[in-house]
């Protein structure tokens, strides 16, 4: 069997696994759709009644929506950093998991900013951001940076997909609709694996890999500067940008591991996503957990030791079990130590334990983002006097929780839709890798 036939055979094998209708797929599709519909109802409620239906008030003007925004932008790092760095370093084992990482990036960068729009309210005035945007505001930098990041992520994903689009275009065995085949033909850009085309595509991919890494760092740095440049306790920190970047790569890697586990489990991809992938990515997660723990310790130690009264107000809220203590210790210790223990000790290390560690890391990273935003906003400089409790203390409403659930459901649903049209395993790349391996073994 020639390499092209082998690639087509592999393509049929993979694509048919994803296109085959299953009860679990249908069930999950319905559940996620219902959650999204309910979120839409919550959103309409918010549009009709105004922001009063949320828990946000005069003091806590950023709530769960912002937490979700930072969280989703954070997990987008999976594709940007993992895929980008591994591509630049020509790491061969990356190939089966790289598509999942790139898809996480694109989907999360689409969903994340939607939360900002939801939070802003008065969407009829959205054009004012563009009409009266102030270039000196980090918020506008964020809008520009995220738009650029999204464009580059889509382009990066597209470039990686060209070879597979060409395979899908040329495949006669798969049942593909005429419309779908038309799109595959257009998107494949007449790619036929010619040496010149290969060279051009490789160059394009290398450029995008090199660009997407600093761009991702820039996006999260800008996000961190929105906080860091505001003189408020818990925010005004010089290490916030690298701290945010590390936290983002950490959570992105954890989400990648979870996604790898889900696809491996439900689509029997053991042949492609092996234990080796979990161990390698798990090791990256371990290093990131240690780095993230170091940054957390450094951040809170300096603030606590500095003993500035306003800063201490927030610190004590975070340390106090009657306030945010339980959440803080869970996020600071649980989110770092549990993944490190589960991955660090060889006798505990397995596909399932690495995934459990990743789930804990992801949950803790969401909590951590909550703890960055809310306690600080609940601690204004001027003492609170004659203010209703709910005006100074934040508690997310059902509308906010519904939209949060809607965001997560949309993330999952986008994946479920994409895998019907795009091979989740880069077939062409894997076939090329096998071809190269066979060639080398023949030579030897």
């Amino acid at each position, binding site marked *: 069997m020639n390499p092209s036939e082998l690639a087509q055979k592999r393509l049929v094998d993979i694509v048919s696994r994803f296109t085959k209708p299953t009860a679990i797929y249908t069930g999950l599709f319905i559940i996620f759709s219902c959650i999204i519909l309910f979120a839409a109802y919550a959103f309409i409620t918010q549009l009709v009644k105004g922001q009063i239906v949320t828990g946000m008030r005069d003091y806590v003007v950023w709530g769960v929506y912002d937490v979700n925004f930072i969280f989703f932008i954070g997990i987008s790092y999976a594709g940007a950093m993992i895929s980008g760095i591994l591509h630049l370093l020509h790491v061969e084992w990356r190939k089966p998991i790289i598509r999942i990482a790139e898809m996480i990036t694109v989907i999360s960068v689409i969903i994340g900013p939607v939360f900002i729009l939801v939070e802003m309210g008065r969407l009829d005035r959205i054009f004012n951001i563009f009409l009266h945007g*102030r*270039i*000196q*505001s*980090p918020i506008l*930098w964020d809008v*520009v940076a995220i738009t*650029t990041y999204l*464009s*580059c992520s889509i*382009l990066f994903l597209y*470039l990686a997909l*060209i070879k597979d689009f060409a395979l899908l275009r040329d495949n006669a065995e798969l049942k593909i609709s005429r419309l779908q085949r038309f799109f595959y033909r257009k998107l494949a*850009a*007449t*790619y*036929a694996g*010619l040496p*010149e*085309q290969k060279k*051009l*595509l490789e*160059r*394009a991919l290398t*450029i*995008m890999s090199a*660009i997407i890494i600093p*761009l991702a760092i*820039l996006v999260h740095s800008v996000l961190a500067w929105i906080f860091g*440049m*505001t003189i408020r306790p818990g925010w005004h920190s010089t290490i916030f940008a690298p701290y945010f970047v590390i936290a983002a790569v950490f959570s992105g890697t954890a989400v990648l591991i979870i996604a790898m586990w889900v696809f491996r489990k439900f689509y029997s991809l053991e042949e492609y996503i092996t234990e080796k992938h979990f161990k390698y990515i798990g090791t990256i997660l371990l290093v990131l957990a240690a780095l993230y723990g170091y940054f957390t310790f450094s951040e809170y130690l300096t603030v606590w030791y500095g003993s500035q009264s306003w800063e201490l107000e927030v610190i004590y809220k975070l340390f106090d079990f009657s306030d945010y203590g339980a959440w803080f210790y869970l996020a600071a210790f649980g989110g770092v130590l549990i993944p490190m223990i589960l991955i660090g000790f060889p006798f505990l290390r397995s596909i399932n334990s690495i995934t459990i560690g990743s789930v804990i890391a992801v949950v803790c990273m969401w909590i951590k983002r909550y703890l960055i935003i809310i306690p600080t906003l609940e601690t204004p400089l001027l003492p609170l006097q004659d203010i209703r409790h709910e005006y100074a203390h934040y508690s997310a409403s059902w509308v906010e929780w519904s939209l949060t659930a809607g965001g997560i459901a949309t993330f999952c649903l986008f994946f479920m839709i994409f895998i019907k049209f795009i091979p989740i395993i880069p077939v062409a790349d894997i076939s090329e890798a096998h071809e190269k391996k066979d060639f080398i073994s023949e030579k030897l």
Partner: protein
Amino acid sequence: MKRKTSFQKNYNIMRLPKNYLIILIFALISGFGLNTVAGELVNPQLGATYVKLTNGTRTFALTLSARIDDKRVNIEDAPLMVYAMNESVKTLLGTLNTNRSGKAVLAVKPEISIPRDKEGYFTFEVEYAGNQTVNKASVSIHIQEASLDISYFEQDTSKNVQVKAFAVNDKGVTSALPGVPVEFYIKRVFCLYRFGGEKTDSTGSVTVQFPKNFHGDTTGKVILVAKILDNELYGTVETVKDYTGLKPLILEPKPKRGLGDTDAPLWMVYTLLVLLSGVWLHVLYVLSLVIRINIVGKKALKQLG
């Protein structure tokens, strides 16, 4: 485990109403007690301070409160009447209600004529008529009218501020006030800065040194304030005067920052534009590579026929 006998059961059942009876008796006793306290009228505390300002306006700062259960409670929305009186006349200067803090301030303009007694003193009376729960109350203030005259002068290298305190009788004749403590201040944005305080000498004047190296505002001006503070005989008397010719305050230009300023530092704008342009130019280049891939493929297809 011991089983309860029927006697014990009965005993427990019987004990319940007995307990209730005791509770009821206590409740009635304490209830009567409360009613008795509630029936008594509360005795309010009425406070009044008199302040005479530079322009001759007289202000009365009034407070009305009561002590209930060892706690000070402000009485709000209570009507207070301020009278000026002598042996024969009682003139109503004004009626005003207390605010949420139990406070009220009445300002009496200088053109309003106030009767004096035979000795030339002013007597003011503040009255609260009371209501169903609070007793009536009154307080009177006996004041000899005093005024302050403030001036400043330089002697050798030091700057001095002098205040002359004098009493004014009903015919407008002034007499010096010796031995009266006078406080000296400079007006700040939110409060007063005290720079001296002494008693007047036999001529009724007192001089204090103005603080060295004290800057004025951007035009070199400060506002001097001199006060006789809460004096038993004169109340509070205040006078103000502009002091010019001080070293003007030179405001440091605010450092320009991006956030919160109307004009961002240009280097930031340029850096941002260069970075973004760099990224977008690369994106365009990559798109051109995709087009080239397409062209190469089309050429190959043409060659194949």
